[in-house]
């Protein structure tokens, strides 16, 4: 089970009204390498992976939900006071027609989230390598979004999230090293 603390993992500040950025940021909400995909991928892989790395997947999967909440807050702040005209100008006309200001799990191009973005191969090495790749892809996505954003307050939050991707990748690499160790070796003849 989970306990919920009604606060963000890191404060989210948005200084300029810029709905266009929300269109790009939604990639980290409902995109292939976004926070939703990350959380669901890790929490689902826990059941069939060796005991020694289950806790890591629980912790990181949980943190991804905290990141999802931060992204949601950013997108919400960027769009909540935009007029329909501003939404249209920001390239969010199609989104407005379908969802009004509601958030939805789709990527920057409007493609809805699908479970085929994630995998559970059952092979611990394959699954952890997918996790490492996902973290690096999410880090790259944050970089491209930061490159397009001129909002220093928003970028502060994005830089925090980018750094977390680096740490998660490091932890998954350490998990691979744990699984490569020779402990618990049992020989059958």
């Amino acid at each position: 089970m989970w306990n919920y603390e009604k606060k963000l993992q890191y404060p989210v500040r948005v200084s300029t009204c810029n709905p266009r950025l929300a269109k790009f940021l939604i990639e980290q909400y409902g995109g292939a390498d976004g926070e939703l995909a990350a959380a669901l991928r890790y929490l689902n892989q826990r059941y069939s992976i060796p005991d020694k790395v289950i806790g890591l997947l629980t912790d990181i999967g949980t943190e991804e939900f905290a990141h999802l909440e931060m992204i949601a807050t950013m997108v919400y702040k960027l769009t909540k006071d935009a007029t329909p005209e501003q939404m249209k100008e920001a390239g969010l006309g199609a989104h407005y027609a379908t969802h009004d200001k509601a958030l939805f799990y789709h990527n920057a191009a409007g493609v809805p989230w699908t479970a085929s973005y994630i995998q559970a191969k059952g092979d611990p090495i394959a699954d952890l390598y997918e996790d490492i790749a996902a973290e690096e892809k999410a880090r790259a996505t944050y970089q491209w979004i930061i490159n397009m954003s001129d909002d220093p307050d928003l970028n502060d939050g994005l830089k925090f999230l980018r750094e977390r991707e680096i740490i998660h990748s490091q932890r998954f690499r350490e998990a691979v090293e744990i699984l490569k160790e020779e402990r618990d070796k049992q020989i059958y003849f």
Partner: protein
Amino acid sequence: MFTQVKYWNPYIGPFDPCPPMRVKSYQTPPNLYIGFQPPNMEQYSPRQALHCGTLWPAFYSPYPSDGREEE
């Protein structure tokens, strides 16, 4: 020396419905340990290499690898 299979003991619950599998295994093939391939590694004969799928014994990963495999 590394092994290409690792074994672990999954948690066995007191109320599991099926007879427990006490030992499970996963593969750790040799490429995980070698990094950038060093030069001048020992090679198989061409015929053996074709059979194994690689020129180099160090990368050969028999499967299933239950200890009874040919080398």
